[in-house]
């Protein structure tokens, strides 16, 4: 009996299971983006609005900015939305996509344990804070994953004239993971960490971590969006992808971004219509 069921039922079932998603397809695009935009809940807020207006579903694959750009390079996404300006400009210059449009910004913060062993609270200067952390050899968690936040952190170390690699394995700890796991590790180890404000605000396992440095102009965090080059990857859904980008930078998309709040606090600030500040 079992074999009869197997013979009659299994193959069609199997074929249906593997191919169904490809057949019964709603109009959709794949968006490679960052953990900060996904995990902060921004996409959960704005994407349904876009889908309602256009009938196009947006499937988000959330990774670090570097990996998200790599997915675009391989042609496995239609649109890339990340926050690492230098890497984005390289992506465009290499002909993998573009043009790059800026969409919104927020900022990074440095969080650390309430005890603040390196005494950085109130400094207001991110670069000086890193110098003190290095001098005190206080534990610092680095993303270490080529994400936009990792790139921003490395720029700050460079400004401080410090090569954190010399403290690797001791006070400088690279987790090679997303923002959430890095914050989890920092909370567990009583370490300092550079975080984007969106992830920090939506992060639940803070323990005694708190914001110690914020408001430094060098903590500015710009997000940009690019269409993957359809000439290089012909299957890219260029029309629908472009429609999404146009919507993001339109008044409708920009006000949807501005309307997203956690506990009354705005997470992302739309700036598509303003000239981008030079970093």
């Amino acid at each position, binding site marked *: 009996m079992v074999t009869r069921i197997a013979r009659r039922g299994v193959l069609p079932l199997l074929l249906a299971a593997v191919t169904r998603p*490809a057949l019964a397809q709603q109009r959709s695009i794949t968006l490679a983006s960052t953990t900060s935009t996904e995990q902060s809940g921004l996409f959960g807020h704005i994407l349904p609005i876009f889908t309602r207006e256009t009938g196009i579903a947006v*499937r988000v694959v959330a990774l670090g900015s570097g990996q998200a750009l790599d997915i675009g390079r391989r042609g496995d996404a239609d649109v890339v939305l990340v926050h690492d300006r230098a890497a984005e400009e390289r992506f465009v210059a290499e002909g993998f996509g573009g043009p790059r449009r800026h969409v919104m910004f927020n900022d990074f913060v440095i969080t650390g344990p309430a005890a603040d062993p390196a005494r950085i609270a109130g400094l207001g200067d991110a670069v000086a804070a890193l110098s003190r952390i290095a001098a005190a050899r206080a534990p610092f968690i680095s993303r270490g994953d080529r994400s936009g936040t990792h790139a921003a952190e490395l720029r700050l170390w460079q400004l401080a004239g410090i090569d954190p690699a010399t403290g690797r394995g001791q006070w400088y700890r690279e987790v090679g*993971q997303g923002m*959430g796991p890095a914050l989890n590790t920092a909370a567990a180890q009583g370490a300092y960490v550079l975080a984007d404000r969106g992830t920090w605000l939506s992060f*639940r396992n803070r323990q005694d971590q708190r914001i110690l440095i914020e408001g430094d102009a060098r903590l500015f965090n710009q997000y940009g969006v690019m269409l993957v080059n359809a000439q290089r990857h012909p299957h890219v859904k260029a029309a629908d992808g472009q429609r999404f980008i146009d919507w993001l930078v339109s008044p409708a998309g920009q006000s949807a971004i501005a309307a997203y709040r956690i506990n009354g606090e705005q997470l992302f600030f739309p700036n598509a219509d303003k000239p981008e500040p030079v970093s």
Partner: protein
Amino acid sequence: MQDLASAFTKAFGLILSLDPAVLAIVALSLRVSLSALVLAALIGLPMGALLAVARFPGRGGVITLINALMGLPPVVVGLLIYLLLSRSGPLGSFGLLFTPGAMIIAQAVLITPILAALTRQVLEGMWEEYAEQLRSFGAGPWRAVPTLLWDGRFLLLTVLLAGFGRAAAEVGAVMVVGGNIEGFTRLMTTAIALETSKGDLPLALALGMVLMAIVLGVNALAQGVRGIAARWAG
């Protein structure tokens, strides 16, 4: 301690409230893992049975290889499938990357060696008992394979459950090839990983308990079917 208690409360809440989002994730997880199990069984069971009965040069090496493949790191499988299914890879034109189909393939690749190795182990014992008898009917190894699989069906149920358990519990490979896309490729395990990284440990643990409950349910169901079938068979 408080987190644990709150995780239990949340888990019961999630199960009792029949939250549609959670139900959709549960349904997709079951669909993916059961499909992977069927796919892997179609390859793994006959392969294991054949290895149990056939004697050929290099058989020992093949058995060692399959046993070793039981320890395939999921992330490595994920990466291999990713590179194969990527638009820039050899199978890119199927557009399977970041779809449930890709996750089914990844889980099937992971559990096929498990099914093959355990099937070989289980049926080899039976073959030693039966070989004489089957040979006296003039049946060669090829003819013996379906007979052995049929006669060993109750023992093989445990093998299938082991494969299902591994598929359902796996996170590394499906994360890479599925992309953990909300409402499309998000499974129980990738949802747990996501909630952990968002720092919502009670919710992550609660989802883990729901997953355990499902796996338990599937096992109980399989045991029940086995019991009824065994009585039927007399």
